[in-house]
């Protein structure tokens, strides 16, 4: 070939590898089936379940969820890559999400992003060697009036200056939310009937079952 061409035909999933989706994860995904007209429609909740359980959705997990939902793995890849929320590689304990949209950009967002990259020594959507931090970029963090913004996990830092970045990242409490989580947060529910602590369902599934 005259140019450098990426070979996409090389398999990334080993056919004989042990499954990464545990029975618990599968069971939880299957519990969503009755709520949707097709198995394909369960893809988004399934991806949330997997990312909550594994931290990220790798190639093997994509292939397995595709088999479970009876869709082509390319459809899973398509959906995952659309949403920046989903991680295809292991994610650090703390994810620094920097806004790259116009307000933050005008107020120096690009310099902040560069400062974060320099400080952690990694690029966008990468994780530090010690697994502590990952960097993500988002289109908007809904803090345009206080740009540049960045998130550390779910904690918003506003009016960040590039010079503040080292101190901000050195602060152990930089991801503290400060506020209690809302009751509306759909946290996992442990099945009382089981003693192994396996996640049985989510609160809204329980709610739906109760109302029936």
């Amino acid at each position: 070939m005259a140019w450098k061409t990426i070979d996409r035909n090389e398999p990334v999933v080993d056919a004989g590898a042990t499954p990464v989706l545990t029975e618990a994860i599968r069971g939880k995904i299957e519990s969503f089936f009755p709520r949707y007209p097709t198995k394909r429609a369960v893809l988004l909740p399934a991806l949330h379940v997997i990312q909550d359980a594994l931290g990220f959705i790798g190639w093997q997990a994509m292939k397995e969820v595709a088999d479970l939902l009876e869709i082509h793995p390319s459809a899973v890849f398509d959906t995952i890559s659309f949403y920046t929320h989903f991680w295809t590689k292991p994610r650090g304990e703390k994810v620094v999400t920097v806004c790259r949209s116009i307000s933050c950009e005008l107020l120096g967002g690009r310099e902040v992003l560069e400062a974060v990259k320099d400080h952690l020594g990694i690029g966008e959507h990468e994780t530090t060697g010690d697994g502590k931090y990952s960097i993500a970029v988002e289109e908007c963090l809904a803090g345009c009036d206080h740009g540049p913004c960045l998130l550390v996990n779910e904690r918003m830092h506003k009016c960040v200056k590039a010079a503040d970045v080292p101190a901000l990242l050195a602060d152990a409490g930089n991801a503290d939310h400060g506020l209690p989580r809302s009751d509306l947060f759909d946290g996992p529910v442990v099945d009382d009937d089981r003693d192994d602590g396996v996640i049985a369902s989510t609160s809204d599934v329980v709610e739906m079952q109760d109302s029936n």
Partner: protein
Amino acid sequence: MAKITIDNQEIECRDGIPVLQAALEAGWDVPHYCYHPGLSVVASCRLCLMEMQLPHPKTREMGWAPKLFPSCQTPVKDGMVVRFDSGAVEQNQKACMEYFLLNHPLDCPVCDQAGECHLQDYSYKFGESESRMHDQKQVNPKKDIGPQTLLYSDRCVMCTRCVRFAEEVSGTEELCIVNRGGRAEIDIFPGIPLDNPMQGNVVDVCPVGALLDKDFLFKKRVWFLESGDSVCPGCSTGCAIRVDQSDNRVQRLKPRYNPGVNEWWMCDEGRFGWKYVHDVERVTRPRLRRGAEMETPAWESLGEIVRYRFEQQVDRHGAAKVAVLLSPMMACEEAWLLAKFVRELAPDATIATGFVPMVGEERCFPVGCNADDAKFVIRREKCPNGRGVELVAEHFGGSTCDFDGFVTKAGEGAFEAVWVVGGYSEEWVPKALATSLAKIEMLVVQDMFESALTGEAELVLPACAWVERDGSFVNHAGLIQPFERAINVPDGARRDGQYLFGLAGFEGLYSGARVRALMAEEMDAFREIAEAPRQPAHQH
């Protein structure tokens, strides 16, 4: 029929079709990328936007609506008034083209699509000569996505036709869109390549040079290609195709729109199945046995020799001992000429229809659908003209039989003079037939490759490939479709039709149309033939 007004001209069009389709059919060259009549409508490229008259919300007076509408997504309605020649429409086309060219590498000099590229054509028509983009271009990678196909995503305009094709027509879903917005690109799941029997069509539906056929890659600039309208001989579906050739060599095959038969598609089996045409092992010269010697007779004297030797056989063994095996690889015209010749010499001669290769099962697409809902079928009958030769045999009547019957009869020693026609790309002669025909007095073999029969033959005649001939094939459904000659016959050979024309007692040059006219006098079926409609530029 709905009547709509486009640019102050009233046109009639089919009901319910998109305005874009109506405009294209009526001769407007409306730019578009994402619209393809064979795929679902996504209206994502925004290039085909038009102005439309709508009633004013208060006064109900008809006037031009302030916004533009995608003509691909707006169905025609009787009395509709639209326009493409307004400033707003042109401005949109210019703006869209600027956007499509933002990250384009402009590598036309090394791009296979150059010369038949919609990006080039529209850019020439609506684009600017200079780019206002001063930032770094977003360069997407070039990817190998399958055994036959490359994806140069730097050239891609994200029309998603290929993705929709894989979903809706082939039903194999290998392709997907990864990432989002300006970073979006077409991709596959790594390790699950684009590899299905219909995949070649994604290269055809790609309006730019993003999807490339490895088979044709860097082979020829398309403006050096000359085309012949043909019919694929790969199976009994009878897809209308275009044979693109240069320097008398086939370069590639492309499907032609043929409603009700292959629509816009063709399968890879047909698309890449022409390589045997340029095989050096082909029989290209006639070969005549004189005593123990084989010699190459002059074409001019051949007619007389064949006629004389056949007459001798008829005199010696009687007309019933003569048989002809018409191959389903022949055109109807050739079969008719040969049958006519044989029946004139020997009125009781047997007319047999030849070997019909059957491979596997019928394959329907989208995969998993049943035969009634299929958008495309690859048939198990791997020859183009099974029905055609049957029609000819039926027309001549008398003693006729199928291939199995012929093999049995030949085994019983029913024939002494036999003309066998092959023309298959692969070995086809059953052992039993070779053994029984080796014993007879006179065997004429008209075939493309040497076989067990050509060694035993008194006369071997070259059968030409379908791209070197013209005539017509009758497909599985009984549709008679003509095909044109695209390249010349190999040195030394002569078109089958030409020498059969002479043998059957006609003078001058053979042409499919000429023989069809003669056939139509005897056979009603040949009065009307089905030709795929001609398509204007930029229509698919």
